[in-house]
């Protein structure tokens, strides 16, 4: 077996562009999905009954459908229904946000529900309103408690951006495929890409874990 890593050296700029897209798509998805997910989660836990039913249905549906299917549908089928064609990056951002936000809302819901009732009782005894209790007492503790699961979700999100290569988003995955095919060096290129993903993901998950260990006591009532 002879390995030839020269295609990677020769095309490092092309691959680095892909890496940049991967990072951009990851960050944009995380920000958007977190905001949407918080709204979904709060709506599910504290919203009126007529809102909870469709939100629960939406969240459970997203838990049931593969992200690949959401991506492909958003990119190929959505324009046929609406006449609006999204460029690959924006279609990927929309699809990933639709999908990941459902999981953010689940994590937030679990975090909120895990806080023991005595905390609400204490806040009520002080005379706080429902909105004040959520904002000042429950939400901050839930955020701390959801960190481990949120860290896993960050990792899942970054990995899921690689699936956007299927709709031709020029991310690290897609650029690697191109270089691998052009130079017929799939093993070298894909191995390098795997290492690159690992080097992004491993520190991210470790950093979240370390941060959680430092702040865990703030969520322990």
């Amino acid at each position, binding site marked *: 077996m002879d390995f030839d890593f020269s295609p990677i050296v020769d095309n490092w700029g092309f691959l680095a562009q892909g890496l940049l897209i991967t990072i951009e798509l990851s960050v944009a998805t995380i920000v958007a999905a977190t905001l949407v997910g918080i709204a979904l989660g709060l709506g599910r836990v504290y919203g009126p009954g007529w809102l909870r039913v469709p939100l629960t249905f939406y969240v459970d549906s997203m838990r049931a459908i*593969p992200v690949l299917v959401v991506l492909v549908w958003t990119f190929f089928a959505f324009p046929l229904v609406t006449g609006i064609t999204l460029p690959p990056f924006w279609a990927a951002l929309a699809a990933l946000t639709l999908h990941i936000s459902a999981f953010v809302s689940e994590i937030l819901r679990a975090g909120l529900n895990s806080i023991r009732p005595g905390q609400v009782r204490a806040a009520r005894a002080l005379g706080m309103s429902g909105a004040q209790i959520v904002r000042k007492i429950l939400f901050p503790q839930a955020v701390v408690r959801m960190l481990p699961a949120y860290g896993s979700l960050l990792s899942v999100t970054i990995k899921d951006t690689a*699936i956007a290569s299927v709709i031709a988003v020029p991310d690290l995955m897609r650029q690697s495929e191109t270089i691998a095919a052009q130079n017929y060096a799939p093993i070298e290129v894909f191995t390098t890409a795997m290492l690159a993903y690992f080097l992004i993901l491993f520190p991210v998950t470790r950093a979240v874990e370390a941060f959680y260990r430092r702040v865990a006591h703030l969520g322990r009532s």
Partner: protein
Amino acid sequence: MTLDWNVVWQYRGDLAQGVLLTIALTVATMAIAVPGGIAVMLMRQSHVRAVSFAGTVFVEFFRNVPLILLVYWAFYVLPILTDIQFSAFATGLVAMCLNVSAYNAETFRAGVNSIRKGQLEAAMAMGMSRSQAMRKVVLPQAVRRILPVLASTWVSLFKDTSLVSVIAVGELAHTALQIRSQTFRVLEMLTAMAAIYWLLGYPQAKIVDWIHRKYGVTE
């Protein structure tokens, strides 16, 4: 735009076959990845440093690379590494097993570690041997913690099987995407694909919730 939903019915045989392959891949992966995960967990607990390090590398590496990339990688690397021509299904199965075994190993480790040491000590203080204490006291409690996580992994795995479509394993996603390109019934086929996944996945998600409620430990 005229829609022709008839195409879905017309290709029902192919779609049904895709569904069967999706289910087969899910079941086969879990069937291998449970013992696989236990093996990797035991590796990590080995007193031989090289073995426990290898176990840790396995878990950290395969949890921290995208599955779709792993599928491509397996597709090109397996034949060269082993000199065997793998079928697409077998290649997909290997990639899935590497990924899910790594997750399961971590699930098992966390499950066993979550049982307080006092439980083992209390059992041994009653006169049980270490292995009796593990079997009778620690493992039954650990199972209650492991089962809900395993159920969640199952649903993720079921959805992730769609990724092996990129190496032309004829499961549901690949089948539906193929029919789409043959018939140009894009909206119909993509919607049907989503609907079939939903029909299969929604009850699974609900069962997972039920398992979490039944076995979930709230502390």
